[in-house]
Structures are given as structure tokens and as C-alpha cells.
């Protein structure tokens, strides 16, 4: 147990911070700990949590995805057209939405792997393309989503929010795949050292495509879930998801230099961010001051995570 905690120090600290923040949130919330409050919190957290997992896959292989938000917006908008009608048409619509997500991820992956373009600029450009398509399909928020399905996926059963169950299922599947399969371990290997991974005989290009495709798939899940929660397709949600997903993975102990971290950490980071902004809402601070404090807390949290720099023995270790 202690070794596990030491090995996963970043995640443990983040989880502790989350517990404290959540306790604070419940303490100041006028309705206290109730199924209603927890369900709303869990739904919001699941949205950002899925976005953070999508970001995690790309960061794991030393990339960064500035198009995550745009993929979420695009799949959300497509969901607002397709996720309605008979069960068969909803199922088909769902398949189309998820395929589009994977395709978007693969476009990024192909440009990075075979086009030799850096991930950050690739996704900056493709983010514009995906976001543009979303905006073309639906210039203003609107559309309709099957309400029975939405109710089933966003309410609570026996006091447990369905969104939390979904998030836990996704996390368990991903953790098993990442830690117990050759493909998952290969992704970590590429993130740690692409050259060594290549020398070991891993199919680096193909594995990177897997990472980008998985990222697109999870982003599409997030987009679908946005449709479920908001019941509309909104093309303008992209920037906030992109930025928060990056902040979330960093808070959750995922190294932007690749190869370190887990989807669990990414989700914890996302939940921390969500809890901070909910805390702000009920904190009694003047509403106009809230964005500033949100930014300040984010910066402080990141800086605290970086305090390790004052323990290094040689400053050489700081420069890589």
C-alpha cells in the first residue's frame, strides 16, 4: 500500500486535494449533501473528466491536443441531429457520432505521424477545421435530443449518479487496457522514449495512431454526454473544454513530457477544476471577482505541484 502511494504520489496528493475541496463544497452548498447536489456535480465532472481522458491519450505519447474541445463541440452538434427518434436510429446515430470522433482523432494522428507536423500546431489548425464544421452544421445552439435517454443517463439510481457509474466503467476499462495489454504498455513506452520503443521493435507509428484515435473516441463520448446533459448542440463550447482538459491533466499528475500519468489522474484533475468553479459559485464572492480567483487558484495549484524544483540537487536536472 505505502509503495503504491509513493509510486503514485502525484495522484494521491491530487485525490486528497479533491476530497478536501469536495468537503468544502458540500459544507457551503445551501442544500448540503443530497443526491441532487451530488448528481449535478457528478454530471459536470464527467463531462470534463471525459475531455481530460481524451487529452490524456495524446499527452501520453508526448503530444498535446488543442482540438479536443472542437471534437467535443462537433460530436455534440452531430448528436443534436442524430440522437433522436426510434431506438434503432439513436443507436445508428451514436455509431456515426463515435466514428466521427475517431476519424477526427485519426486526422490529427496522421498529420502528426506521417506529415511530420508538431502536435501542437497540427491540432491548432485541425481545431479550426473541426470547429468550423460544427459551426456550419449549427450556427446557433439548438437541436433536440431524445429525452428518455438523457434522463436515463443523467439522473441517479439508488442515490448513485449514473454519470459517476459511466465514468467509473470507462476508467476501469481504460486502466485495464493501459496496464495489462501490449498496446497500452506500448503507449507508455513511446511516451517515455520513442527511440527506445522503436529499437525494441514496437510499431511506433501505428501505436501513435491508436493513441490519437482513442483520444478522438473518448472526445466523442464527451460530446455525446454534453448532448445528454444540455439537450442541445452548441458549437461554441470548444475553447473552454480544450483549456480545462489541459489544466486537468497537469493537475492530475500527467507529465506533458509524455509517458507518465494515468486516466485516473486526469479525471481527478478534472474533478478538482469542476469543484473549484462550483465552490466559487457558492462562495459569496462577488460574481465579477470569480473568474480572477478561479485563475489564481489554478495558477497556485499548478505552482504548488511544481515545488519539487526546489529540492533538486543540481540545477542541471531542471534543463532537459
Amino acid at each position, binding site marked *: 500500500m505505502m509503495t503504491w502511494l509513493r509510486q503514485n504520489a502525484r495522484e494521491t496528493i491530487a485525490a486528497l486535494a479533491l476530497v478536501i475541496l469536495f468537503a468544502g463544497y458540500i459544507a457551503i452548498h445551501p442544500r448540503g449533501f443530497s443526491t441532487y447536489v451530488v448528481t449535478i456535480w457528478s454530471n459536470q465532472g464527467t463531462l470534463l473528466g471525459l475531455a481530460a481522458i481524451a487529452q490524456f491519450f495524446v499527452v501520453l505519447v508526448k503530444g498535446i491536443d488543442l482540438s479536443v474541445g472542437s471534437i467535443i463541440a462537433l460530436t455534440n452538434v452531430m448528436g443534436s441531429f442524430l440522437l433522436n427518434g426510434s431506438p434503432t436510429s439513436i443507436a445508428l446515430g451514436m455509431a456515426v457520432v463515435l466514428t466521427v470522433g475517431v476519424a477526427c482523432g485519426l486526422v490529427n494522428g496522421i498529420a502528426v505521424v506521417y506529415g511530420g507536423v508538431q502536435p501542437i500546431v497540427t491540432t*491548432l489548425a485541425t481545431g479550426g477545421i473541426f470547429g*468550423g464544421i460544427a459551426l456550419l452544421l449549427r450556427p446557433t445552439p439548438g437541436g433536440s435530443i431524445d429525452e428518455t435517454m438523457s434522463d436515463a443517463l443523467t439522473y441517479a439510481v439508488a442515490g448513485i449518479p449514473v454519470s459517476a457509474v459511466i465514468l467509473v466503467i470507462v476508467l476501469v476499462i481504460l486502466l485495464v487496457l493501459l496496464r495489462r495489454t501490449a498496446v497500452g504498455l506500448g503507449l507508455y513506452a513511446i511516451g517515455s522514449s520513442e527511440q527506445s520503443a522503436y529499437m525494441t521493435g514496437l510499431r511506433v507509428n501505428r501505436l501513435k495512431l491508436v493513441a490519437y484515435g482513442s483520444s478522438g473516441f473518448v472526445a466523442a463520448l464527451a460530446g455525446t454526454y454534453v448532448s445528454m446533459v444540455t439537450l442541445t448542440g452548441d458549437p461554441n463550447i470548444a475553447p473552454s473544454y480544450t483549456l480545462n482538459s489541459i489544466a486537468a491533466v497537469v493537475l492530475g499528475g500527467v507529465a*506533458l513530457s509524455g509517458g507518465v500519468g494515468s486516466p485516473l489522474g486526469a479525471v481527478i484533475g478534472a474533478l478538482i477544476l469542476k469543484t473549484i468553479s462550483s465552490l466559487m459559485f457558492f462562495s459569496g464572492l462577488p460574481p465579477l471577482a470569480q*473568474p480572477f480567483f478561479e485563475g489564481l487558484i489554478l*495558477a497556485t495549484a499548478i505552482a504548488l505541484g511544481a515545488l519539487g524544483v526546489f529540492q533538486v540537487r543540481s540545477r542541471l536536472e531542471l534543463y532537459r
Partner: protein
Amino acid sequence: MTDATERTVTSRWLNRDRVSVLLIALGCVALLLGGSLLYPGFLKPGYILQQLQIAAFLGIIATGAMLVILLGEIDLSVPWTITGTAIVVISASGSSNPLVASLAIPLGLCLGIAVGLLNAIGVAVFRVPAMVWTLAVNAMLLGAAVFYTGNSRPNGEVPWLATQAATGRTFGIPNAFLVWLVVAAITVWVLKRTVYGNYLYALGNSRRAVFLAGARVRLVMVATFVLAGVFSSFGAILLLGYTNQAYQGMGDPYLMPVISAVVIGGTSIQGGRGNYIGTFAGAIFITLLSSILSVMQMPPAAREMIFGAIILVMLLVHGLTNKKEGV
């Protein structure tokens, strides 16, 4: 890449940097010719001068972004540095205290210095990844601006000097473009001929090597982020003179064009490679492209898509030529 390939690549006259500049210059010409087919006024000097004037705002802001990118970092706090500077300048200039009013522009530049220092503290001292830290700084600036203005449009006056520099003309040439030329000349000199410039390229290539060589790595990093903040604020003041008003989110549409201008100009996003002429041409290219897309009366969505697609194609051309050269 190995030393040998680097030498063969750079010894040829048509090296990588020149290819990117050439490519982008051809792109500008193609845009102008293509535009003139749709709208005959495109090749008139009046239109071209106006585009150079608009490109100057982008180009000056991109200068700071390029320095940071050469260092191997990135500055995502550009949007709200622009907005914040515009708000500070417009409200200081409209102040009833004549001393504050006369110091409006220096105050705006001070904001840029402050933001640069804040960015540098996170990136150079705490070694937080620049991408996250500057994002958080951007969020704080946004919060501060919202709090200060009460989320309404700030009132005040635009300083006379800003209006003159942004919209005035000297011998028929827009002042903004002349200012940009001066900035460009100084930047080229700094990058090619000063110790600071050499360190900047070296740091982008190998921070460890430069540290071991005894250079003051942190100082160079801090200086670079401060310069980037100053350039953002400088561009913002010109922009303020041009638009004659400050408003929430006026800097938001600048982040992507600024980074695109630097990167399609051939500067490597990983740092250490690139020249200013490329950024200069990149800023003009981006300005022409968005002008043509708006003249064609594309809906904003389609404009965004085409913009993204063209930038992706240019990056792919770069990426594939790099691969061939074995970079």
C-alpha cells in the same frame, strides 16, 4: 538530426529557412492574384498598403510570440495581455488627472512587462510547462479585466499618439507599417548579431548544453518572456489606435493567427530554428488570407475551416520537406 546533415542542408543556398520564406512569399503572390480574379481592386497599391497596415498589428505581436517559440516555450497569455493593455491605456488616457493621462502608453507597456515577469516566474523559476502556466496567467488577466471593468466596455480616450501611429500615414505609407519595419530591423539585428540572440537559438536547441556552458539561462528566459509581453502590449496599443475603442475579448481572435504566422514562417515550434523574415511574411500571408476570405463573404464558420485547412497544408509541406531532409 546529425551534424553532417545539418551542414549539407545549410550549406546549400536553398536551405530550409529560405525555402519557407520563398514558399510563403509565393503564397502571398498567389493570394493576391487569386483575389484580383474575384475583385479587381486587389492589386491596387491602396489595398495592398491597407493590408500591410493591418498586418503590422499582427506582425508586432507575432514578434514577441516568435522570441518565446525560439526559446522552445509558448505564450498563450497573448489574448488577454492585448485586451488588458487596451483597457489600461484607454482608461488611463481618459483619466482626469493629467499626469496619469500623459503616462497612458508607458502604463500600458508596464502591464506587458508585468505579465511577462509573471509568465517568467512560472516558466523559468518554477519550471511549470509554459503551455499551462501562461494559460493560467491568461485566465487571471481575464478575471482581473472582468473585475475592473464590471464586464462592460471600458470608457476613456484613445491617446493621440496611438491613433497617429496606427492610422496616420507618412509619405502615403501607413505609420503602423513603418513602425513594424523598424521593429523588424531591430529584431533581425538582435537575433543575428547579439549575444542574447545567439543564446536564444542555443537555448531552443539544448538548454542543458547552454547551462553547462555557463550562460545565465534563467536571465535569458525571463528577458524573453518580458520582451514578449512588451511586444503584445505594443501591438495592443496600435490596435487600440486603429479600432479607437477597447472591449472585452478584443485580443481573443489574435492567438491562433499569431502562432500560425510564426509557424508557417518556418520557425520550429520546438524552438531553436527560424528566422524573422519568415514571421514577417507569415503575418502578411495570414492577413491577406483573412482579408480575401472576408471579401468573398464567407460565413465565419467556413472562413475558420478554410483558414485551418490552408495552415495545415502549409505545415504538411514543411513537415514533409523536413522529413526528406532527415530532420
